[in-house]
């Protein structure tokens, strides 16, 4: 596990959407997957996970369903909805654009100001 980076609320929502877009997951599974696809660099604070999930569900971006986990225990699975997919695409585009702009600013050399 690498150093914990500070995460803003909006970013967490985006990461959850992305994690879930790769296939339905329960809450703990979302945690694991984010950790996994970040290459071990990112660990979500557990206290803020479920509020985020509930919020996203309230907004209709993910939908939940009760199902059975790997070891046959009852768990709630979340999957991405059509609205969620659209939102994820939009947020990804925004993020990339923003990252480009800020990156450009930050990489300015003094004589180019």
């Amino acid at each position: 596990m690498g150093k914990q980076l500070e995460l803003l609320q909006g970013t967490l929502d985006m990461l959850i959407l992305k994690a879930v877009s790769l296939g339905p997951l329960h809450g703990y599974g979302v945690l694991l997957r984010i950790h996994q696809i970040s290459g071990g660099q990112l660990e979500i604070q557990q206290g803020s996970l479920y509020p985020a999930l509930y919020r996203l569900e309230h907004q209709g971006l993910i939908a939940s369903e009760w199902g059975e986990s790997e070891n046959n225990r009852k768990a709630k699975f979340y999957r991405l909805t059509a609205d969620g997919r659209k939102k994820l695409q939009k947020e990804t585009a925004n993020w990339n654009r923003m990252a480009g702009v800020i990156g450009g600013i930050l990489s300015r050399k003094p004589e180019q100001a």
Partner: protein
Amino acid sequence: MMIARIRSWWKALAHRPQMEAEVETELQFHIERYAEDLVRNGMSREEALRRARMELGPISVQKEESRFSRGLRPWDDLVADLRYAFRQLRHTPAFTGTVLVVLALGIGANAAMFTVIDATLLRWLPYPHADRIVSLATSEKNGSPSWVFFADLEEWRRQAHTVDGLAYYTDDSAFLQAPGGERVLSTYRVSASLFSVLGVPPAMGRDFLPEDQAPGREHVLVLSEPVWRSLFLADPDIIGKQARLDDVAYTVIGVMPGRFFFPAVDSHPQVWTPLPITAERSKRDFSAGTYAAIARLRPGMTPSMAGAELSGIQHRLTPLYTQVLSRERGPYNVTASKYRDTLVTNARSSLLALVAAVAVLWLIACANVASLMLARSVARQREVAVRVALGASRWRVIRQLFTEGLLLSLAGATAGLALAQAALAAFSRTLSSLLTVPAHLPPNWTVLGALLFLSLLSATLFAFFPAWLSTRAPLEPALRQGLLQTGQSRGRHRIQQAMVVAEIGLSLVLLIACGLLLRTVFALRNVPVGFRTDHVLILEPKVPPSRHKGVDLNVALYRPLLNRVKEMHGVSAASLTTLVPLHKGFNSLLSLYYGAKNSGKEPVRIDAGLKAVGPELKEVLGFRMNRGRFFNQQDTADSQPVAVVNRAFADLIAAGGGTVEQLSFSLGKDRNVKIVGIMEDFHQAGLDRPSVPEIDFCASQLRPTDNFYQPVLQAHVELAIRTSEDPAHIVSDLHRVMTDLSPDLEAASIQTMDQIVEDSMGSQVLAARLLELFAGSALLVALAGLYGLLTYLVTQRTREMGVRIALGAQRHKIIEMLLGQAGRLLVAGALLGMALSYATAKVIAGFLYGVEPHDGPTLTAVTVLLVLCGLAASYLPARRASRVDPMAALRSE
């Protein structure tokens, strides 16, 4: 997305336990899985579980978060606040009770006024765009408005551009015989355009057509829905059936929708029939009838524009009038006013003044509750400090305190509404006769909405400010013990004093108004009426004239009744008369122009009351003659017809350059009337109004064929009876005599003259009674405020009192000191009240009679009363202060 939100919100709200169980299951699963992973990495099971639980956080927090993420936080907060407020209020029953009573009074009075205003000034009319319907009236150059001639109406219809349609009508009452029953109804003879101008077509059958107004074709009838239900048994095939109206056959052609009425001032069942246009009616002559007229404004037009246009048209029509004088003085100007406004003209200003009085009462109530809340907030300062110290935001605390105030306000408003209904029921008889509203006035949505708004406003006024102050107070001293003895901040103390002064001032305004009105009523009661009102009974037979078509009721019924009554034991005199003075409900006017030839004076217009009275009336009513004689036994049916006039009439004749002896009226062929006497004036229209000119013919001389017979002896007749003993004893005997003579007399009404006089003062008496209520309530509330403040001060300063007494201060000095403080507040309040009263003097001047708004004695008396009451209310707390046990006071730390 919206639907998903609503669904999840609903689930959290309505299925809370289920949702929380789900959250719990989910979190449990999470903890299990995480623990398993930790165990796999080498931790012990208990350690792993502990770690997992710790990282996730308390489950209850997660549950709460799950609710908040669904946007339920405001709702949860509100429920919590309400529960807390309810508990707090229950713990202090004295405070809660007082506040509820005060608010019930303050808001209840407003609720009653809203209901009355809603039923009168904002009255709902069953016509689309009712505000565009205007009432039209003509007047002479400087005269008062009156009904319109048909010929003029026709010209207006043809030429006017500001109105979209014109209709006219006249009122009558007729006896309807129908399969379901028979009764007297309000029958309106109307133009064919009436319903289309109003914009409401009949629900069944057809509307009137212009052809229906042709003479001979007018025997068709449109019914109102209540009439259809009761008298025609809601017959679905009613169209085309017949009914008899005043014994003439009419065909029913239509039924209006339910809840439709026109005109709006009449609460009796109504039917409408077309007015036939005869040659007589089309003349421009005072013998042609006149009609009430309405019109519908074109969009964008105002009543004054319509009035101006029609006046212009009318100026060109006046020269067409046939009689010489009417050419110069005929109907000249046209005024158009909104129909709704004409419905309550005379009561409008009284209503608005009462609204002001009620608003003042509300302000007093709010001030009182505000100071109570301020005092209470000091007592709860510690609680607030603790909450803020524990991390509550200021706003959150203010919101909670405000919710308490709102709860009180709504509870007070509900109690007030119940009070209002009770008050309206108690006053319903007077109200319905004065204001032409139905006797039962239930609250409707508009009233309830206004009440809700008022509750919110009240809560804001008295709860918000103290709450805000509470949160601004410094925390540390509040958290420590001994706050109660260190006294409150200067600011709050001053505000409380200001509240009490304001309450006293406003109460004084109401008290002064009440005092002035009571003096007005007293003055009115002592106005010399001009005749005797004691031991006089007035009998009003209510026989439908159409029941005895072709029979002269006077000969057949009233004269025999008079004779029988005169023979009764206990009756000393009795007489027939058209109408007794001060009695409302009928009016017969004789309009004439008098100008003596060669006198050089301008012709004078006289609108004289026209009556027929029997020779015994002078004995019954005991008025005096100025000159000449009244009727006596020598005036029989065969001698020369005579008449008397009153002084007002004679004065007008003199102003026209002549004398009453020169006047001569004609009753018909060879029947010229001579005026034989002038009565002293007495009040006929109202105790506060001057005497109306009047001319009385001798009832025993008039024959059915005479000119003036119909308006004075057929349209309306009353029997005036002077009794030798208490009038109440005779009433049952009278009833027996009447029913013996004819069963139609059973419906007759019997009143004493004193009652009639009292009814004529109706509006002032009502206003005085209401003000007594308001001013009394205001005084009570203000005194309660004063008492409360002083009690509170004493409690605050118990320690100080103890020290003073221990240092040797005498007890009566302490009482003096506190009474002095109270006295200062009272004087300040009284000065404020007098200043306000002075400023609003003009508002009340219009209602007064016999007393000025700045009347010295009234103001002094009322102020002294207030100060004395205030000192009395302050005595108890003052005495308590002087009784403080110095040892106990010094010890309580």
